[in-house]
């Protein structure tokens, strides 16, 4: 401990500085490299894309299962999903509300709330969608119902197609919650 601090090192000053500099640089190298290899793996999820994020049409329900009274009904959406190394075939990936309008058209709404992504329920007494998390209310056609609703936008409408007169196909997509505009989750 009696040795003088390094700044007062009695050795030749130039050589001493070079050695200190080299030691510092090399320490930084050996310290950083293992971390860099780890960072690559940690940041791997950034490159992942959601399967089916483009919204290919999925068969969700048949015409007969929808009441003609205009009350929305909830249906699960089944699709293939990849979860890291696992590939799942035909598993529930979300839910939609389907509604038959008076002119016999079908509308589809994504059942997750655009505010924070909670699952929205339909109250038949009030005739409104209600998000149980932060009390957002939506009309049957999806628009925000009350001024106090914290949701930034209406429920997300999805494209619907009726095939073979009775199959209801929905382009199921998720949008990022919390934004005024619809930004697809990719």
């Amino acid at each position, binding site marked *: 401990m009696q040795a003088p601090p*390094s700044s007062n090192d009695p050795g030749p000053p130039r050589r001493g500085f070079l050695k200190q500099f080299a030691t510092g640089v090399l320490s930084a190298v050996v310290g950083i490299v293992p971390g860099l*290899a780890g960072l690559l793996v940690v940041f*791997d999820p950034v490159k992942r894309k959601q399967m089916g994020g483009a919204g290919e049409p999925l068969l969700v329900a048949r015409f007969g299962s929808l009441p003609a009274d205009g009350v929305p009904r909830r249906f699960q959406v089944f699709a293939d999903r990849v979860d890291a190394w696992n590939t799942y075939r035909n598993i529930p990936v979300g839910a939609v509300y389907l509604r038959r309008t008076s002119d016999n058209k079908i509308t589809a709404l994504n059942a997750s709330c655009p505010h924070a992504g909670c699952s929205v329920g339909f109250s038949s007494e009030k005739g409104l969608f209600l998000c149980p998390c932060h009390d957002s209310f939506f009309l049957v056609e999806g628009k925000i119902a009350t001024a106090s609703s914290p949701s930034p936008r209406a429920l997300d409408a999805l494209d619907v197609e009726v095939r073979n007169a009775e199959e209801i196909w929905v382009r199921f997509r998720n949008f990022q919650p919390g934004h005024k505009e619809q930004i697809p989750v990719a």
Partner: protein
Amino acid sequence: MRFLFDWLDRRTGYRRLMHEALNENVPGGARWRYVWGSTLTFAFFMQVVTGFALWMAYNPSSQTAWESVYYIQHEMWGGWLLRGIHHYTAQFMTLLLVLHLMQVVIDGAYKAPREVNFWTGIVLLMLVMGLSLTGYLLPWDQKGFWATKVATNIAAITPVIGPEVQKLFVGGTDYGHHTLSRFFALHAGVLPALIIALIIGHIYLFRRHGLTPKQPLRRRDAPFWPDQVFCDVVACLAVLAAVLFLTVWTHGAELGSPADPAEQYEAARPEWYFMFLFELLKHFPASKTFLGLNLEVWGAMILPGLMVGLVVLMPLIGNWKLGHRFNLGVLAIGLGFFGVFTWLGYAKDAANDSFKAAKAAADHQAERIVELARLKGIPQSGALTLLREDPLTQGPRLFAQHCASCHRYDGHDGLGRPGKDPSSAPDLKGFASREWLAGLLDPARIVGDHYFARTRFAERSRMVRFVQNDVAEFDEAQKAMLRKVIVALSAEAGLPAQTTLDTAEATAVSEGRALLAHEDMRCTECHKFREYDEDPDSPDLTGYGSREWIIAFVTNPAHERFYGERNDRMPAFGSDGTLDAATLGLLADWLRGDWPGSAAPMPSAP
């Protein structure tokens, strides 16, 4: 800037700490022989950093451990690099521990008052061995699974409490989810925590007593910074460079095929640093006893225990006049022993052909599972399912087990081994392909080894008479017709390797079909083809060689659709319950070269 540092120093006193850390006196100046402790600390730091990153991607359960490591190795950014660094640094840690121990013993740094520090070092060595052992199992591949199983089974031979000790390690009676959870908790939690605590104690005691210089001193004393730090950091850089070199050279750590408790694994070997124990055990059979304990207990526990005991006693023995020399002798004998038995283990394997074959088969399977996982994705039941349902993997095994006592596949038993007895039934490589059928209809080959030799059809069947008498006399026009018949019959099989050919020659196929049914070619005198045959006693040619046809044939060759009562010795594998439908399907798919990925071999005449 200076103000900021002053502010920080007044509150933390970091300058004094840095000064203490960096100005440790090095008696006799910096020397390369003092670097080992620092390289070990660095190696441990690398393992912690890479280990945390691996932790974020690893999943310990018997359906996800291999799968998540596969994902790290083959799908994630830099995953192979990360695994490789973690794997090779572990190897280097073992090596550096031995070097550190050698330097301490040779320089006499274990002597009073440094006994306690020496002992903490020995405990650290044991803990690092524990990290190696637990880490080896985590990928849950065949190699790690079987090697670790041996280690925990050795724990079970502990007198009296063995079975309970084993259950504690394994987390139950058998390997499974809890084995992985326990090993992972030990590997990533308990052992590193103990190591960190002991490293702190180890360094504290080292600083308390100071460095034990190598005598005589060559230069005057110098502070730790910068000369010794420079030596240390260069040594760390060398370790890092070696690790990176090995990682890139071997493309990271090996990942075998997923652990399968039902599948014998002949290539099971421990890592190199446990190879001497593996070899040692062969010389201590459990069937013999010494002093009331079986020899395996002596070889696996008492002898290594005595060796460790001697090392622990080194500081006390060192007080004796000749103690230091005695300790050096113990060290030399220990290392020599380690070297000889390690060498013996590897030399035996290098001369062992069945081990080499098992290793090659294991490597092959490891490649195949990766191909399958990429092509099909991994089902929830785990990657093992992919292998169990893979014709390319299972076909050869099933063939060797059930078919090869009579049949051959390209002259071997399916797994590449020559058959024991001469074949008594056709060689089925390329069955129903054009080449295979051309051989069957060749007067020179029909009773050859690859077809009807040693079957009852060789002597008195109408098929053999037809080929040897009639086909042998065919003129050029008839030979051309026969070629079309072969093309058409082979197209019935719809072999994947012939799909392009069959489509391109669709005209020849349809002409051949007409000829096959025509009385001039005489096929339908005995065989049925599409149309009804009132007296069938020869195999149906409709769909010949197709998946359905092969399954039905193997299910019962004596069915009236095939040989009926004329069936030779072939058992009804399906009807008698030997093989179930899924297994028959695997066999049929393999014979037809019908599997995902790896190009099916083009059929060739046997």
